[in-house]
């Protein structure tokens, strides 16, 4: 089943790149000389696929692409990719990569700040570039990610990052990609939950939470007015952090699942003139007219989820992307998993294909659509001249589990696809070699 890589360059690279016993990957240096991948099937995403295609990149950006015999690029590093495929790097739109190492160990979790309203926080500064989780995601073609704070009401600001670099600063693309809000739960109180909180308490809590969000934005606007005309107005980091969202320059990423949450959040954002993106959106199919009317994009929070309700069709979560597509709603597909399992991102999109989403749309939901929704539409998400040379070379369709990612470039830098798992695998293969149980 596995398609063997054909090129000596690649073979040399894999052997050298994931040296045995290396538990940490070394960030790649900046692209110093041009490179060309050729004889590949090129999938630009924003244009039809190109058989026997080639792509040239230099200084971290794509400079040319075409089909047929590759051009002679002086001094270029050449990657012959016969039988292989080139795609833009996949984009994880809803991740906590770098903010968490071991879910159950609190000290390794950095995505939630004290307090319910903490817009002043931003994800990027807490990203651990040496996290073991990042190379694991990369090995499945995920090269760009949005990292979101979570919890409370206003969790903070998300950051978009490239998944390779010595420091978080190296990795940062947009440190303040948008404001993240966890929308209060608007569901009617459930009988089961009544045990811990009475129906009245739940309703009261919902009202308070909604009011807290309104007040925050009202207060921020008053603060901006005061700040403009009153030199003595003291600075408030929380409001300053909301400036881009309130001006509509940056999106507000609102985590909302239930129909009522989405309705309430969209109405709020439209009323305030905010650029809203729904994250999660489990019941987005129930509010299509509203989403369409206001052209609200949705980051689908994973496809591999159980239906929310007993009566829902078994595939209701599988078909959500197809439903959004048919309704003309812009959407990206996220993994819906913890950071450790971000690598299953493309499998989620694949299941959506099995349940009605055209394959091309599924790929877009992991690349160009995702890029546009998180503010990277002009630089990422497709193979186009002028865009970042952030690409993967695979043995086949990246939506198939059985497909391997053989090469990956981040801004033209060929990155190490090794990771903790491959290292441990190698280590223990050696054990069984020593025992004479295996020979390869």
């Amino acid at each position: 089943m596995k398609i063997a890589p054909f090129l000596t360059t690649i073979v040399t690279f894999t052997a050298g790149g994931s040296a045995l016993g290396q538990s940490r990957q070394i960030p790649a240096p900046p692209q110093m000389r041009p490179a060309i991948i050729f004889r590949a099937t090129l999938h630009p995403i924003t244009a039809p696929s190109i058989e026997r295609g080639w792509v040239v990149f230099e200084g971290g950006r794509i400079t040319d692409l075409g089909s047929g015999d590759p051009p002679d690029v002086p001094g270029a590093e050449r990657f012959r990719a016969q039988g292989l495929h080139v795609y833009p790097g996949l984009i994880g739109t809803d991740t906590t990569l770098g903010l968490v190492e071991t879910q159950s160990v609190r000290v390794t979790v950095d995505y939630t700040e004290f307090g319910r309203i903490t817009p002043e926080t931003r994800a990027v500064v807490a990203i651990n570039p040496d996290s073991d989780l990042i190379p694991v995601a990369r090995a499945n073609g995920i090269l760009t990610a949005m990292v979101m704070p979570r919890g409370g009401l206003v969790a903070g600001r998300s950051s978009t990052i490239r998944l390779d670099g010595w420091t978080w600063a190296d990795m940062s693309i947009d440190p303040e990609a948008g404001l993240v809000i966890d929308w209060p739960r608007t569901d009617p109180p459930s009988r089961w939950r009544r045990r811990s909180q009475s129906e009245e308490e739940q309703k009261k809590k919902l009202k308070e939470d909604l009011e807290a969000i309104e007040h925050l934005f009202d207060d921020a606007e008053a603060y901006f007015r005061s700040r403009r005309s009153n030199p003595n107005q003291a600075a408030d980091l929380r409001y300053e952090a909301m400036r881009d969202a309130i001006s509509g320059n940056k999106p507000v990423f609102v985590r909302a699942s239930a129909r009522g949450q989405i309705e309430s959040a969209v109405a709020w954002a439209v009323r305030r003139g905010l650029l809203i993106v729904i994250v999660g959106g489990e019941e987005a199919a129930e509010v299509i007219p509203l989403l369409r009317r206001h052209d609200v994009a949705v980051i689908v929070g994973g496809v591999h989820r159980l239906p929310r309700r007993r009566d829902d069709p078994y595939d209701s979560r599988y078909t959500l992307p197809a439903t959004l597509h048919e309704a003309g709603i812009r959407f990206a597909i996220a993994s819906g998993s913890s950071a450790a399992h971000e690598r299953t991102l493309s499998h989620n999109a694949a299941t959506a294909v099995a349940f009605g989403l055209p394959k091309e749309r599924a790929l877009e939901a992991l690349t160009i659509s995702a890029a546009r929704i998180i503010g990277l539409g002009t630089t990422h998400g497709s193979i186009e001249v002028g865009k970042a040379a952030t690409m993967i070379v695979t043995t086949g369709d990246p939506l198939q589990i059985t497909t391997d990612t053989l090469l990956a470039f981040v801004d033209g830098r060929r990155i190490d696809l090794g990771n903790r798992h491959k290292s441990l695998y190698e280590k223990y293969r050696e054990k069984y070699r020593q025992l004479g149980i295996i020979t390869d």
Partner: protein
Amino acid sequence: MWLKRFSVLLVASGVGLSGPWEAGCLAQTAPVNGIRSAEVRAHAIVDATVVVAPGQEIPGATIVIRDGIIEAVGDDVAIPPDARIWSGEGLRVYPGLIDAALLIGADEPAAERGARHWNRRVHPEVRMAEEPGPDRSVREDLRKLGFTAAAVYPDSGVFRGSGVVIALADADEHLLSYRDRAAMAIGLDTSGSSTSGEYPVSAMGAVALVRQTLYDARWHADATRIWAAQPRGHEPPIRSAALEALASVIQGRQQTLFCVSDELSVLRAASISREFQLDAIILASGLEFRRLKEVAAAGHALIVPCRYPERPDVSSLSAADRVSLRQMMTWEQAPTNPRRLLAAGVTVALTTHRLEKRKDFPEALHRAILHGLSEDDALASLTTTPARLLGVADIMGTIEVGKVANLVTVEGTLFARKPKVRSTWVNGRRYEISRDPDVTFQGPGTLTTSSGAVLHVDVDTTKKRLRVYLPDGTKRKAKKVIVERDRVSAVLEGRLFDVEGYVRLQGVVTEGDIVGTGVMPDGGQFAFTITPGAPTPPTPEASKTQPPEASKTQPPPGATDPDQPAQIPARKTGPQAEAPTEPRPTEAEPPEAARDDPEADDEEQEQDQEAESEEIELPPEALPRPLGAYGLTEPPQPQTVAVIGATIWTAGAEGIITNGALLVADGTIAYVGPADGFEPPAEAIVIDGSGKHVTPGLIDCHSHTGISGGVNESTQAVTAEVRIGDVIDPDDINFYRQLAGGLTAANQLHGSANPIGGQNSVIKLKWARSAEEMVIDDAIGGIKFALGENVKRSQSRYPNSRMGVEAIIRDAFTAAGEYQARWQRYRSLDDEERALTRPPRRDLELDALVEILQGTRIVHCHSYRQDEILMLVRLAEEFGFTIGTFQHVLEGYKVADAIAAHGAGASTFSDWWAYKIEVMDAIPFNGALMNRVGVLVSFNSDSSELARRLNTEAAKAVRYGGLNPHDALKFVTINPATQLRIDHRTGSLMTGKDADFVIWSESPLSTYARCEQTWIEGARYFDLDDDRDRRQWAASERQRLVQKILKAAHDKPKDAEDAATPGGSRREHSPDEPEP
């Protein structure tokens, strides 16, 4: 208190009964302090319609009661001259109702009493006969509904104690016990919180506790008997009030009453009863219709509550979203429960148990009757049936000579929505429940004041209503009307009298008028009279408030045509029904006359509408199982079917057969091989398999789907006695969802909270069948073990380290070995010796461990790190058994050689890692690498969601580690089957095996593959087309029910529902009333 005035009764029972009911037994023993008060104990209820038993009515009958016993009944009965006579005219007399399960609090036995059971929920020694009994208010509430006797049980605990059947008398000294030792109440109560640390926290733990305690009782009885026979050489048996109290149960001398909370628990109780051959009745939940067939087959008599679920909230789309079809159907169907149970042949007694308010019982019963329960059945389930179940049928349940005089008299029928219960008789003592007012004023009237005002009013003192009609046809209600016997007072708006504020009236009904005094807001007083009949058309002088144009308007209801004579409301002053009369009841004025007002007002119209709306839309008769969406009225049946032309992944020696054929007959595989040359039999349904892939049904070696009441009995480090098999939930919708992902079998495991957890259950996903039918009965028993972080987390118990984990498992197996030896020694005794030797105590926990040692039960051990894996391998080898599977086993790749050499299987996650410290070294290559080293490997889900996609999990063994696709598929088919020892039946497509298979739209390892059909034992349990039909049915059924609920909510808002609760009058007894 009036009851203190009773004096010793003298008596001569003409009937000549003997036994406890002999007159005189009820005599008070306390001395009378003052003048004695005589009580008449001979009564005759005359001219009544007597329902002597369900379906047997005697009109115009007389009942003679003497000293609490029915002395005579019939339509030709002489009334003894000494009897006090009660008119029964217009009344029906029923046998007094019996509540077969009145649960009340009882004190747990104090710990210092000694010999208490170690578990504080086990207190069978409690005897309700020795407890104070239900509060007077409870007794009174029940009497108002017509109940005269009840079986009283403790309301909490596992072994709760023995019940008592009592009379629902008012005086404590008359709380006679008809039966001192009724059934032993058993509940499946849990501590409900793992933090309390009290065993049991899970439903399966509660079942295990019941089971072990019954074995202990048996053992204790044996030990006691043997010690009695042979005290020499034996230590006396341990003292245990609990086990002693259970001796009668275990020996079949005392009935048991299982108190359960849902229909599945009815089946669990039935299964325990079977195991111990208990004589059991079950206090059910009221939801038995959801599993009617199984409940009926269990064959136990049920005591059934009439509490129905709240009407679901579908008032907004969001609210409706949260309500499942199952909830809506449960709401709609619940009132059919008694009728369905009876029709299915179940013995049913009804109870007020579970009702939030007891006074709602008549309404609930009425709803059951509207839903098809016959009145005779309803009566039987409240009289003869409970009498029989409680063993008191010889003394109550019917109105027969010699039986206790427990009666209820009702105007109309007992089964009306609001029955008019007039009196309840308990042991021949009459308790008045309600009576019509002595005097009434009903109908239109003219209110004339001494100040000259004339108002057109409408008064109904029986309804405490006074309304003033304005000339324009509108009306004003009096703010507050109080009626006390013949006294009436009311508050009216001042503007009716052209003043600000409120005008208060107070007067009496006398000679057909209401006469009294009024007070104006300024304190000025006036006299008023209300005379029957509307005033003649008022003139402006007559009423200053009347606008001149008013006469044009339509006359208000109640205003009469001036040409017609004014209607005079009837007065009722004669003797009331059942009022004592001497010597024969006089002809009472027909009370109907008073109510015979042809001019129905709004309220009455509303009531009429209510009455009309009682013609209910009957719910559908056929019920799907499980109830709700995707349930089936009939489970799928085996078919003869051939799939031809498909790519068949056999997971067996034939590998992948392209263009293959599969033939299924009688639930098993009849042929698997090339399609070339294959001819299906004529009767076979042929499925065109071209382009499709067929695999064996997928098998999940680690599932927690479909387990009721908690997956962890976490309270103790070793809980080998608990069994998942006791708590399978066949209604879990995730079974259906997993079928839709090609899953056909699963290993239902206990959780990983303790080193030695509970016993597993291996099932097939036979949706729409019972838990029993799902179980693969020839699978070897298994048990969950767990190592590492989870088991050492509890701060309050051992172990807290991986060192302790090894030690406690070692200790458990050491104990099991010794236990095994004890039994071997005992069994090797000859019969004579054995008869005189106390048997070892049967310990279900150690039994399970002994089975492991003997190799008849296999261990499925949750594990992560290589050290702990190796530890258990070595420990098992030391004790001479082989581990069945290591579960998760994420570092299995580090010690795969040891696992392979030991012979254990490995059931792992495909690619989970990093969620806790002990899985930081987990790698997705684990499965493939272990496989290469020679370990039998499966991929499992441990997740109700992931269990729907095990086929693509298998693909990860191709991606990570380079397995060939067919071998990878074995990770979710034949390998888990082998690990579970069910490979002789399922897991691969081979002739003779169960026909468990899946049809896929493409290669099962492709992420684009869809499961199109899932078959188990030759029956199609999932199919895309069937699924589409079921969705449509569910959607239309939802809409129907939402509409029905909205209509119900509109017809009868919640508030009104609460207010419209029936019940007797709240009048307290007062000394001047003719009470006994």
